[in-house]
């Protein structure tokens, strides 16, 4: 029955729908799905993959730096105020370096190779007073260098800016390299994107004791403070660092001039529930007998923290008022001691708190992406620059003052000489290279802000640029911030996060994310007022929260209220779409809080969406045609109001349809492409929407370790370590993201024919069986290049190292075979362990004066040759030798050592679905199974890898690639791509397979290569893109017999790099004890470790010594050799005894016969 009913209901539904569709199609304008994909490449073309970094840095160079200089433009002497220096203008020049007084232009690649900093001079125009005493003249100077600013690659000041592929190639630069990093002393450094809680916004949440609190982190150019208003035991208090203890909030209100309780209640709102909540606080205030502003200030004065050294008398008056004005809610400006805006702000905070108390839903979510801001390189650098600039000016002022203070000055005084340019250059360079942001002025001490750009693979580099590092430390055991937030949709990649402690905290930007930069508020304010916002100043407390009126809040600042908020918001949005206000301004109507939030601050994440009117996309086919014809660009879409950027908050006001087809009446926006919710790393995975989600996360981590091509200029780079694949391929099953980011040009893997079957037993635990012939033909072959460097040092006494001709005959000749006549290893030579690669000699005397330092005799030099220390038996090749001079003008010689490796048992491979495995065995081709067409697999994967991992995407990849090779067309597997045609459907793939004579399910009839008979199962076989990961047995395998020991304990060294021993640890020892293998323990822990023979005095129990001359043992405590026994002891034990003795503890040995 039930079934029948459902059926009929379904039928009715269908009929209804049919009718509806009919009606709609008659009335509504014709909908047709427009292929909007073309927008994406266009978007990435104008934006690049790391636009967020570039935008931020460009903003800093163009705007922020000028603001900073303008704000601190005057240096005036305190001694003689008429002497001053004024900065008129600031600009950044072209990247260059001054060598021996000659300015030489820099390219990034030159900096990488020569260990230079890619920096450009900061020019300022100055106006200053010269002359002494009587005669003072104003002078102007243009283009004075105050320091060097490291330049972000591809930013507006970079030489690569706007260059096409050919020009880039001429600069030695890879056209696919995204830029967005700095080159500091030859190393590439990227400033990670920092995630922070937004500034200047009220955030309602609870503290540890479940008390509701409203907190504001204020940040203005002048001050930074944190204000917390908290409800504790029904009373409301203010917490501020400048006060010694909590302060009742009514006290604060009174101190700000709100003497009447009624007004406060009115401001909060006349709802009796609110008044009830406020009552205890009011009573509290009355209990203290504080009724007037003066009394309140008196009261607060007691709570003010005493500064350790301050002029108590002067400071006493108005300290509290000063704090309330400048530090308490610093983001609300107080003009002419008008505290009213601040009072209203507090009232709004209180109201929101009370709402949250009455209704838990009104609580803010700290993890909500709209409450977060991303801090980028531009902002961080501007903080740093501001600090350094101010410091430099202070220093200059101090020197000027000391000079002016001198009674007699003879020379002409020139203030412009006292600008020391080194402090800014060095400060910027040091901070960028260490990553430690220590800005005392802003109480900022952050570590690890920069990282060396990961150049392991191209994707790793891209992934590194989009990485967002978290605000809090990773050790916290909370799940909230780690969880995937729904508001991250489209902004942050849901897959790409590391495993382990940073899981969920470190995130990656999605493909289309844009991070905003600051925008000027002033025009927006006046615009708001002219659009009908009623000024705050003109409103009474009562009017503030009138029904039907919404507060208008711009960047956390209450502007006023508006009676028709929706209309206001629409008007603002229209202006934005028309390009009258910035495209990244967000207008968000919050119905719950009855506010309209306008945001123009920097660090918000936003993304482009297609605008729809009543469910009809504004982009029509002719627009796309214009785009394809090259008439239109992405920006013109933006300008014409077809596309707009929405930030996380404004998304809440939008109804976004995934596809045009499912747009409804109320739809306001349509996604451009659904797969853009994924980031760069996750975009490589074909059919990720068919995989179990952790597998995609694993692949995101592994894609960064895959070997392949790293950049077009990979062979001219001199990185410490480069992994390359000899024959990289582009995947047969691609995705749109792969094409967009250029992974098809710089691939990191090979298409291997995979048979999913068990074979030989060497394929358990995810091991794979490989075909020897495939390896012979170049599958998985890789090149590892390592850098070795040597410096020909110059010493203080004028002597220097020298590099001399190698000896061709004699004792050392054999080790010098690879040296050229110039004493350096020649490129192309095979280098073996212990070979000398630089025949260097150093002078014996490097300090103190030497006669004729340049013409020292041969005897004054001692050899300091450098030898290659590679693994024994491995033959590497000298790939390149480069000579450059380093900062101290020493000759620096770099050698690249290349080693080509073919895969061996134990090397790690992985498909693109988080399915890693090591090579278990290598099998001759004739032993491997073959299909009816003679196809032999390159590798065999065990089917047990599938059931628990549920990587269906991998199976579809196999099918798709198989169809791809048979039909000669690359197939696609973009995420969520089936409806839009960016992923081939399995049905279509199967049809292709059948057309080419394969089974629809991809399983082939296979013959065993060993017996020659057919296998009793059809085997799932086809190509899968496999990555070779950087973990190779050759770098890891380690064994040792006897070898080096640590000097102090005489125990074997630790670690592979020191050829160390393998430790029998506590747990292993425990096992042996439990087993009773005492002799084994004795042997492992002493005989094979650090045996030592000691003389023990039986009488005093202390260690004696053996006198080899007299051949007697002696106890130095007893002064005789009567009671000496010889015994074996671990040396570490003897050491312990002696160390204890040094600490005045006497360990005594008691010996008994065994």
């Amino acid at each position, binding site marked *: 029955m039930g079934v029948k009913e459902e059926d009929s209901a379904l039928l009715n539904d269908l009929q209804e729908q049919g009718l509806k569709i009919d009606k709609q199609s008659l009335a509504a304008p014709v909908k047709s799905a427009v292929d909007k994909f073309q927008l994406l490449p266009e978007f990435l073309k104008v934006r690049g993959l790391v636009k967020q970094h570039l935008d931020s840095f460009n903003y800093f160079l163009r705007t922020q730096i000028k603001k900073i200089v303008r704000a601190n433009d005057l240096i005036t002497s305190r001694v003689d105020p008429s002497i001053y220096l004024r900065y008129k203008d600031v600009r950044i020049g072209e990247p260059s370096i001054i060598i021996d007084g000659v300015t030489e232009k820099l390219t990034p690649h030159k900096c990488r190779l020569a260990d230079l900093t890619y920096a450009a001079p900061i020019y300022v125009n100055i106006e200053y007073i010269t002359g002494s005493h009587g005669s003072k003249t104003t002078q102007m100077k243009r283009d004075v260098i105050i320091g060097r600013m490291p330049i972000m690659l591809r930013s507006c000041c970079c030489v690569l800016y706007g260059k096409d592929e050919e020009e880039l190639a001429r600069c030695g630069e890879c056209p696919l390299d995204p830029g967005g990093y700095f080159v500091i002393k030859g190393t590439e450094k990227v400033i990670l994107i920092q995630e922070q809680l937004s500034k200047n916004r009220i955030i309602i949440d609870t503290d540890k004791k479940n008390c509701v609190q409203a907190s504001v982190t204020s940040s203005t150019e002048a001050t930074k403070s944190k204000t917390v208003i908290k409800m504790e035991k029904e009373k409301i208090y203010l917490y501020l660092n400048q006060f010694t203890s909590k302060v009742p909030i009514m006290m604060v209100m009174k101190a700000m001039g709100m003497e009447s309780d009624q007004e406060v209640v009115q401001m909060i709102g006349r709802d009796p529930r609110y008044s009830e909540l406020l009552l205890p606080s009011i009573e509290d205030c009355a209990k203290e007998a504080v009724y007037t502003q003066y009394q309140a200030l008196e009261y607060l004065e007691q709570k003010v923290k005493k500064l350790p050294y301050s002029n108590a008398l002067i400071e006493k008056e108005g300290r509290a008022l000063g704090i309330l004005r400048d530090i308490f809610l610093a983001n609300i400006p107080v003009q002419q001691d008008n505290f009213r805006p601040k009072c209203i702000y507090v009232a709004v905070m209180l109201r929101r708190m009370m709402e949250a108390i009455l209704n838990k839903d009104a609580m803010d979510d700290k993890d909500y992406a709209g409450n977060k801001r991303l801090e980028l390189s531009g902002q961080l650098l501007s903080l740093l620059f501001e600090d350094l600039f101010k410091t430099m000016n202070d220093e200059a002022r101090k020197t000027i003052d000391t000079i002016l203070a001198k009674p007699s000055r003879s020379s002409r005084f020139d203030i412009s000489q006292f600008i020391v340019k080194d402090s800014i250059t060095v400060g910027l360079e040091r901070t960028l290279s260490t990553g430690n942001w220590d800005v005392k002025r802003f109480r900022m001490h952050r570590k690890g802000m920069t990282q060396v750009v990961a150049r392991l693979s191209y994707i790793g580099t891209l992934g590194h640029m989009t990485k967002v590092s978290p605000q809090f430390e990773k050790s916290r055991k909370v799940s909230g911030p780690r969880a995937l937030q729904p508001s991250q949709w489209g902004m942050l990649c849901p897959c790409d996060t590391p495993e382990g402690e940073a899981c969920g905290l470190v995130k990656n930007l999605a493909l289309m994310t844009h991070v905003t930069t600051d925008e000027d508020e002033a025009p927006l304010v006046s615009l708001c007022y002219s659009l009908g916002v009623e000024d705050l100043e003109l409103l009474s407390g009562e009017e503030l929260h009138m029904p039907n009126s919404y507060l208008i809040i711009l960047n956390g600042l209450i502007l006023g209220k508006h009676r028709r908020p929706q209309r206001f918001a629409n008007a603002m949005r229209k202006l934005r779409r028309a390009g009258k206000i910035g495209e990244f301004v967000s207008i968000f109507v919050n119905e719950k809080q009855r506010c309209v939030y306008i945001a123009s601050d920097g660090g918000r994440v936003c993304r482009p969406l297609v605008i729809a009117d009543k469910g009809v996309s504004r982009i029509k086919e002719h627009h796309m045609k214009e785009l394809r014809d090259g008439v239109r660009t992405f920006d013109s879409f933006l300008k014409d109001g077809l596309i707009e950027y929405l930030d996380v908050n404004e998304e809440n006001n939008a109804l976004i349809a995934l596809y045009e087809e499912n747009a409804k009446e109320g739809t306001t926006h349509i996604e451009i492409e659904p797969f853009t919710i994924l980031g760069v790393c996750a975009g490589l995975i074909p059919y990720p929407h068919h995989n179990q989600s952790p597998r995609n996360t694993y692949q995101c981590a592994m894609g960064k370790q895959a070997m392949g091509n790293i950049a077009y200029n990979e062979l001219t780079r001199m990185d410490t370590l480069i992994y390359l694949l000899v024959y990289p391929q582009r995947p047969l099953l691609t995705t749109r993201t792969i094409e967009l980011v250029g992974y098809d040009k710089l691939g990191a893997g090979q298409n291997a024919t995979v048979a999913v079957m068990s074979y030989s037993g060497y394929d358990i635990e995810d091991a794979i069986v490989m075909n020897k012939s495939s390896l012979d033909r170049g599958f998985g072959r890789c090149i590892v290049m390592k850098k070795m460097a040597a410096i020909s040092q110059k010493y203080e006494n004028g002597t220097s190292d020298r590099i001399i001709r190698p000896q061709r005959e004699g004792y050392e000749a054999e080790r010098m075979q690879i040296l050229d006549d110039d004493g350096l290893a020649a490129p192309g030579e095979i280098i073996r362990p212990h070979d000398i690669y630089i025949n260097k000699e150093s002078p014996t005397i490097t300090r103190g004066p030497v006669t004729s330092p340049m013409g020292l005799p041969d005897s004054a030099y001692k050899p300091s040759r450098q030898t290659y220390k590679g693994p024994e038996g491995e033959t590497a090749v000298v790939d390149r030798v480069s000579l450059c001079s380093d900062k101290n003008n020493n000759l620096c010689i770099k050698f690249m050592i290349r080693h*080509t490796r073919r895969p061996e048992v134990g090397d790690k491979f992985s498909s693109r679905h988080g399915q890693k495995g090591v090579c278990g065995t290598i099998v001759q081709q004739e032993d491997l199974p073959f299909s009816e067409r003679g196809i032999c697999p390159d590798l065999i994967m065990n089917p047990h890898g599938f059931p628990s991992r549920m990587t269906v995407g991998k199976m579809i990849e196999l099918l798709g690639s198989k169809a791809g090779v048979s039909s000669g067309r690359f197939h696609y597997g973009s995420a969520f791509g089936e409806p839009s045609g960016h992923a081939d459907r399995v049905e279509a793939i199967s049809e292709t397979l059948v057309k080419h004579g394969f089974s629809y399910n991809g399983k082939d009839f296979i013959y065993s290569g060993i017996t020659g008979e057919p*296998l009793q199962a*059809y085997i799932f076989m086809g190509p899968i893109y496999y990555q070779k990961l950087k973990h190779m047995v050759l770098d890891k395998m380690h064994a040792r017999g006897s070898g080096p020991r640590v000097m102090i304990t005489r125990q074997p060294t630790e670690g592979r790099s020191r050829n160390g021993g393998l430790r029998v640890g506590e747990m292993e020892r425990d096992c042996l004890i439990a087993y009773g293998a005492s002799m084994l323990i004795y042997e492992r822990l002493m005989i094979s470790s650090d045996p030592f023979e000691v003389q023990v005095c039986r009488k005093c129990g202390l260690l004696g010594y053996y006198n080899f001359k007299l051949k007697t043992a002696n106890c130095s405590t007893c002064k005789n050799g009567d009671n000496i026994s010889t015994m074996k002891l671990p040396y570490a034990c003897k050491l312990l005894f002696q160390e204890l003795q040094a600490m005045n503890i006497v360990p005594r040995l008691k010996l008994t016969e065994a």
Partner: protein
Amino acid sequence: MEEQKTPKIPVWDLPDVPKGKLPPHLELQRTRVLCTSDAPTHTENIRYSGAYASMGVDNSLRLGHFRDNFRVEVITLTEDDMEFDMIGIDASLANAFRRILIAELPTMAIEKVLIANNTSVIQDEVLAHRLGLVPLKVDPRLFEYMSENDVPNEKNTIVFKLHSRCERGSSRIKVLSNELQWLPRGSEFTLSTEKPAVDPTSRPRTYTSFNCSQDSLPEFSNNPIGPKHDDIMIAKLGPGQEIELEAHAVKGMGKTHAKWSPVATAWYRMLPEVVLLQEIEGEKAEELVKKCPVKVFDIEDIGKGRKRATVARPRSCTLCRECIRGDDWDKHVALRRVKDHFIFTIESTGALHPEVLFTEAVKILEDKCERVITELS
């Protein structure tokens, strides 16, 4: 066919099986691989001589029987490829030929590369690897293996020279395999230990010690040695780059390295047998014909406008199993493989012709058998 109509009949009522002949269903299992939609069954060969002794059938291998029934039919033969049928042979023997072809037939391939100059972007060892994989057109039977302490001589080594340069100012060039130049007199590079010639008449010692020029040998006089294909890309050179090297080819086997394998691949498949278990007529026949992507089936007019499906080209069946997919198609069509009929394909890399390769493989197997016999006796 038989297994469907086996109603429950007590054992003693079964008709007597004629002695000396297997019942049809056993015969089918013995001689055919049944390819059902889920898995192939009866893939194994029944080797035990007494497997059917209870039925009076001798399953032992009989040489005379084999000699009478064994046939080889060449289907296609070109310079590089050959397809032939091997009928009346066991899978293990066919496989032995396949394995020998891939791994144990010797050829000549470049093994040592002496690089005098390489300023191209391609690394020395990668270049050498690529050169090694270039198939050479030379009969390996005319050469000897070079063992560890042999000196390279005209009997065991072929020397090629490659000297290519891209002039400055010109555009990029490709270095193709046709630039590999055969040096019949052996290496031209003098040993590094050699002192500059004191006596101008005596030839300086080089990396090879040829007693005579290879082109004076009758085999090579009209038939210069070179790569099989002239258009194999070895490297690309940019302006100002140069490659100068000497490549020494020696004799080797595919099991050491795939470059010595004389075949691109060699494989066989069992002869497909497609059987219609029932008459398929009318629309269903049309459907069947349409189903098969390689057109195994055809339609036959059986008069009165009725159409019947027939199996026209069973040989082209790729076992995509479309014809037995879905519904109960497997009741109508049976896909089988004939266990003792192999369609053998050899794709030669060019050193020897495929038919020569096969005869060589047979010789090697013969040698192996003889070795076994001598070891045993």
